[in-house]
């Protein structure tokens, strides 16, 4: 049984919440900017019954954070992890992008991430898509992400890794 609701919403972003007995999942979408109010979201979580022990964060569909949104998010994570066990169910590209410049967006503790995404670009049709990976999918026994060429979901052409390795490495180091 689950209870789904919207914790925060504007015409540019939405934070949905699904409460199950074991955990609360927050799903973020769109632009995280000044409309994101970390205190209001945290208060809404605190008011939930039963109170979740784990808060899972799905940031796959966050398009971008502006600097005001980044600061608000960093404060939100800091306060959230002081009260709950925080798990990133999936870390999207917009958040990974911050790993080597503003690591506070992942909180102060070691990041617990179930999945993250690696972007690939199809040279055939131009489609950009994500491979959903577990942290254990990246290890010395497997090819590096830029050596992998998954088939494009649209045209099956082998695609190329499409971000700088340093950013993903910076993120993976925090796991």
């Amino acid at each position, binding site marked *: 049984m689950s209870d789904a609701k919207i914790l925060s919403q504007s015409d*540019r972003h939405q934070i949905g919440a699904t409460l199950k007995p074991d955990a609360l999942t927050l799903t973020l979408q769109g632009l995280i*900017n*000044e*409309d994101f109010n970390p205190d209001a979201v945290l208060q809404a979580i605190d008011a939930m019954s039963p109170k979740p022990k784990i808060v899972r964060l799905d940031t796959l569909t966050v*398009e*971008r*954070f*502006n*600097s*005001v949104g*980044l*600061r608000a998010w*960093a*404060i939100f*994570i*800091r306060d959230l992890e002081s009260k709950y066990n925080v798990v990133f169910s999936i870390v999207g*590209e*917009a958040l990974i*992008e*911050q790993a*080597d*410049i*503003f*690591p*506070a967006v992942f909180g*102060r503790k070691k990041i617990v991430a179930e999945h993250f995404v690696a*972007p690939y*670009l199809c040279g055939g049709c131009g489609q*950009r898509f994500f491979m959903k990976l577990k942290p254990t999918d990246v290890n010395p026994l497997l090819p590096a992400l830029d050596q992998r060429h998954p088939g494009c979901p649209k045209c099956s052409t082998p695609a*190329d*890794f*499409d*971000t*700088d390795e340093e*950013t993903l490495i910076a993120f993976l180091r925090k796991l």
Partner: protein
Amino acid sequence: MLKPMILLASKVAEDRVFAEEAAGAAGFDLVMTDDPQEARTRVLPDGRTILLVGVDNLQDVVDFKSHFGEVIGEGSGKLSPCFVHLIGTCGEEEISEISESNLFANYVLRMPDQAAEAGRYYGRIIHQVSLKKDTELDGIVPPPGQVESVRLNHSSDRAKALDQIQERLKARGDVHERVIHTIINAIDELLMNAIYDAPSDEGGDQKFRKVARTVPIDLTGKHTVELRMFLGADYLAFTVIDSFGSLKRNEVLKHVLRGYELKKYEAGTQAGAGIGLANTFHVGGSLLFVSELGQKTEATVVFRKTGTYKEFKKQFRFISIRTHRA
């Protein structure tokens, strides 16, 4: 009229390639040496010298300061910092030393594998920052393309302008979505700086700095913000102009360069602390600022359009901060 002269002082081979291409593109004479002491003797006394200095480590920065400290400055017979370009790698050890120096206005991030191409492009920038007082987008961005301008008369116009640019970039079909988000973020930061950080009273207090970005503000009179854009075939450039001229050169430089290499931004960092500009530079944007104290600041971001996001993030970039008294 005698041509300006580019004088390169650098031990790095790629800097020579860069300087040769830049001089060729700018149409300027070129002198190169790997000895900063010799370079100092080659500075022309008539203000025609554009100095490029390669700095690779802390000692290079110390040497730069000691060799050129007395010849660079605002006084007559001195080489203006606007004519001085440091070429470096944003290395951790030298950045704080560089950020506190007032001896240069331009910092170029060295890209050894792109030295020739970057040099050809940077020749345009050298020409612009040496010979032009204001930032002319059609001067710093290669044609084809044209400059367009919109005025923001209310803080809510910021989102509208960003939406319009986002739609136009999407409609082009040749700019990837991740790149579009990156570009929109960069423009957003420049607009927020102009709307909320730039306005200052006679005492220098920034009246809107601590105002929540959700609070509506009329941008009339001196508060009006102008956004210029150049959506070229190969480059995309945007200038945001405010009428306050309150740019703090060393603060901007410190944040942008520190953000490139050091990892020190923490939760609780105050608004206006430069994360947005640091992010812009970090993801590939070049930044040019021209500020006339108390009159206006022109803040420009330039991106090269690339085929992939990977190339986009590894593109050549620089920061130029010129401040003038009106």
